[in-house]
């Protein structure tokens, strides 16, 4: 299909409508409808990605409403443009969406009984919004899609446990502030350049030499500030942990891997495509101080993750730390750092998905995700635990999981730019991740409580009844998506080169510094 790029947004949109309307008649159709529409979406996003790879300019463009570029210059009408980066991120979004849709059967029925039509409607709209963010080529349209994703996100979170409402309110306030900043920035851009098309804006900036224009500088700060709030960069992270903790299982599985990562994508898009490399890195001071903020962000988030005693909260703080990784990868300003950031968007989405799916199963089976309830889980659910810990090893960065390779590029980037503070922070947080996950393994595997008292009678007796350690695996509809996600983590790691090649093709035109080499 030549217009498959639009169908990436339309399939989930139609699916959402079908769920909301058809669900009124029979609630049973919601699950199959959303899985089917996600299948179709993944298919068209794979198609789009291959179109982008095969096209000579490495991008697929579609002008909504037929405002052709020959008749009207850039600036009129909305363009959907999937270059390799956008197509990759769209595939990640829809892929995660599909896996979570498969997974949703049991938890949605249990946690939001009777509200399935509404839930699946919001769920599919969310994916539609997130995929749209990755594909749109229009700065204002991007705002609209950010709001689509945010509003449906509020709804999806608020369906959770009783404290979810308060968490949602917090999220609404911060999310709205972020979106307003962004909108304000886009206003400045439009006033100064007369266009909203992303490529058009950069063409105007470069043609008219707007690098020192105060208005552009203000626009840059506003846009970036808005995005940083939306992506939960450290001082602005307050909305995230509560929102993901109290949300329904399926919601946190969908939002945690995607929302922050898609906002990182938006930042990269703004920096590279909209403002251009020269403007973003050479005529602002951001490369000077942002890596230092990243250091603070990663360290604080990692320390707070250490303080948590509940898996979902711990994972939430991990996400905040990972956001710091990716922001740092962009602002250390070099080729390897950006490869690392983009690859980390993909791999972090996969591994966070893996971890949240695992945490969801633990919650489903044990009714708690507190550390104290984990003992003996290897015996009870070995496959779930294998899946969960593949995600954990990837967060630590052990080869051959995909987390190793993104960390490899980020470290290399820090080295090439000689940002030692960033590199050392990466090491530090890696060690924190080691502690976090091996502490979990200890909690599951050892017959010792937190203060070091032996439980049980020794010889591997965990102090549990036979009932508690009996083999009792999660339902297949939850287990298969988890194992799928875990194998994606491994496959993306093993075949990382296929992905990185595309990222390299995307980054080539930007002429980023690669450092001096010894021949």
């Amino acid at each position: 299909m030549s217009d498959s790029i639009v169908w990436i947004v339309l399939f989930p949109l139609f699916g959402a409508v079908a769920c909301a309307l058809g669900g009124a008649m029979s609630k049973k159709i919601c699950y199959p409808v959303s899985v089917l529409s996600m299948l179709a979406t993944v298919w068209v996003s794979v198609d789009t990605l291959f179109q982008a790879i095969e096209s000579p300019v490495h991008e697929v463009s579609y002008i909504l409403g037929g405002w052709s570029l020959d008749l009207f210059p850039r600036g009129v009408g909305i363009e959907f443009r999937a270059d390799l980066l956008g197509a990759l991120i769209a595939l990640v979004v829809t892929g995660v969406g599909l896996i979570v849709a498969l997974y949703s059967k049991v938890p949605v029925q249990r946690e939001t009984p009777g509200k399935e039509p509404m839930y699946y409607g919001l769920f599919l709209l969310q994916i539609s919004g997130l995929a749209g963010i990755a594909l749109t080529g229009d700065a204002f349209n991007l705002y609209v899609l950010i709001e689509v994703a945010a509003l449906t996100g509020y709804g999806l979170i608020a369906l959770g446990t009783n404290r979810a409402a308060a968490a949602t309110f917090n999220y609404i306030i911060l999310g709205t502030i972020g979106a307003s900043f962004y909108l304000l920035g886009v206003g400045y851009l439009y006033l100064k350049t007369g266009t909203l098309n992303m490529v058009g804006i950069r063409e105007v900036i470069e043609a008219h030499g707007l690098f020192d224009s105060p208005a552009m500088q203000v626009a840059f700060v506003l846009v970036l500030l808005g995005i940083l709030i939306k992506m939960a960069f450290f001082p602005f992270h307050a909305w995230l942990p509560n929102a993901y903790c109290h949300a329904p299982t399926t919601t946190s599985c969908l939002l945690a891997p995607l929302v922050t990562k898609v906002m990182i994508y938006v930042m990269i898009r703004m920096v590279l495509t909209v403002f251009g490399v020269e403007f973003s890195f050479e005529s602002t001071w951001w490369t000077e101080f942002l890596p230092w903020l990243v250091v603070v962000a990663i360290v604080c988030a990692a320390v707070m993750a250490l303080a948590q005693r509940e898996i979902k909260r711990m994972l939430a703080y991990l996400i905040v730390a990972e956001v710091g990784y990716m922001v740092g990868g962009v602002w250390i300003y070099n080729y390897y750092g950006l490869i690392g950031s983009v690859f980390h968007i993909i791999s972090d989405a996969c591994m966070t998905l893996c971890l949240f799916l695992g945490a969801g199963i633990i919650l489903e089976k044990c009714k708690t995700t507190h550390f104290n309830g984990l003992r003996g889980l290897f015996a009870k659910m070995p496959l779930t635990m294998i899946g969960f810990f593949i995600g954990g090893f990837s967060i630590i960065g052990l080869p051959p999981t995909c987390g190793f390779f993104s960390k490899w590029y980020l470290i290399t980037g820090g080295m090439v730019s000689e940002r030692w503070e960033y590199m050392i922070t990466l090491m530090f947080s890696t060690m924190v991740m080691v502690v976090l996950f091996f502490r979990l393994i200890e909690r599951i595997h050892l017959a010792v409580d937190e203060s070091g008292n032996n439980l049980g009678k020794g010889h591997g007796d965990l102090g549990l009844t036979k009932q508690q350690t009996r083999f009792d695996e999660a339902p297949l509809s939850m287990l298969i998506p988890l194992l799928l996600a875990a194998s994606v983590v491994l496959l993306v790691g093993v075949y990382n080169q296929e992905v990185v090649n595309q990222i390299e093709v995307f980054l080539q035109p930007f002429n980023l510094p690669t450092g001096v080499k010894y021949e």
Partner: protein
Amino acid sequence: MNDPVIVEDIRPLIALLAPWAGMIGIIWAGEKRANLREMFTFIAASVQAAVVLSLVPIILSGAVVEFHIWQIFSHVPMLLRVDGPGLLFACVASVLWIATTLYAVGYMRGLHEHAQTRFYSFFALSLSATMGVAFSANLLTIYFFYEMLSVSTFPLVTHMQDKQARTGGRTYLGYLLFTSLCLLLPALSWCYVWLDGGNMTMDFMADVGKVGHFGETTQIVLLFLFTFGFAKAGLMPAHSWLPGAMVAPTPVSALLHAVAVVKVGVFCVYRVYADVFGPEVLAKMGGEEWAMVIASATIIISSLIALSQDNLKRRLAFSTIGQLGYIVLGAAIATDRGQGGAVLHIAMHACGKITLFFCAGAIFVASGKKYVSELRGIGRKMPLTMGAFMIGSLSVIGLPPLGGFISKWYLALGALDRDAMWVVVVLLISSLLNVFYLLPVAVTAFFRTPETEKDSSLKEAPWPCVVPLLLTAFGCFLLFFWSDTLLQMVGLQP
């Protein structure tokens, strides 16, 4: 060195995958069919050993065997290559795995240990990783298997699942993952990005000495990052994980913490010194003097600590740290005979030390005794075990006609080749210290009278425990008489 013939062959991969296949069988058989489960371990171990041994003639004829798995980066393949030193290490590990399996059956059943399926599964996994390290053809490949080994041995170290296991496990992982992720990874990344315009493969054959393009300071920093990054080599001050890991069941201490894991560490260090830096660059840069000093200090200090240990396994652990120091020292000497001696010492020390650990475990199974001071007179009740202990001790000390003599001899020759007289002195002092901390064990066991006669019921451990330790003790003799073949493998004899 002129380029050897390269033979494409899948056998290295089979040696790598045999334990995985075995693991599937082990889990399938499970606790309920214990005999079947142990049979799978035996099959996996035998297949691995047979495959590895079948490669010996090819290597002896001067060729190397390669197998390409997949591309890690566009310019870095995951490549397996069997050459002399790698094959020697692989032979030692895989043959001793068979002996250890037999021993583990006796030990684990004798003590009615729990979770034996988990134990055998992860044991197999660690042997797969060990083969991977032995057969790696470039630095990144070796790093992958190195990390796999760290993680797959964690459940073995924490096997007892109690408070002590937790402490040991934490030290173990803390040291190993901190060094590999925070020292090794930056060093690797540094080499790969800066050399050859970002297209470096760090191949052990093609890229020897390329790090010589760096400035002198960078070279020395890299050398240290690599030396301490491979903390499994147990070089002081990154050694404390090894005594901590002694909480594991004895078969683990025997095979992994005297043969596989620690030897993986020193083997990696050897690879770095011999095949990344290469003798010429090492000799030019001057940093290797420091490495030699650190290794020598490790040898002497750990031997002194070993003297004061009453717990037999801890004493052996510190002895291992000292012996690992020999291998690092030999690799750092950067002469052909020194580095050859280092590789030989991997084999010689493995055979001797595994015997000692087997004996310590056999004593524990038979009598529950862990301390040297409790062993008075035990040799009269367990003559076979303590006799083997004696032979193992003598081999580690380095007396002919036992294997340990050959490697120490070549280490000393290597040191003389570069006029480092002080190294020979260090070797002599340390041999003396070896005598002081190892022989009293056997002497106490044979010649001191027991305090009470209540142990009259004491007898040898079950036969699956005793047979392997006799075999490995016999192996110490064999290694001495077969040293020709070994010398040929490490390239010291045509």
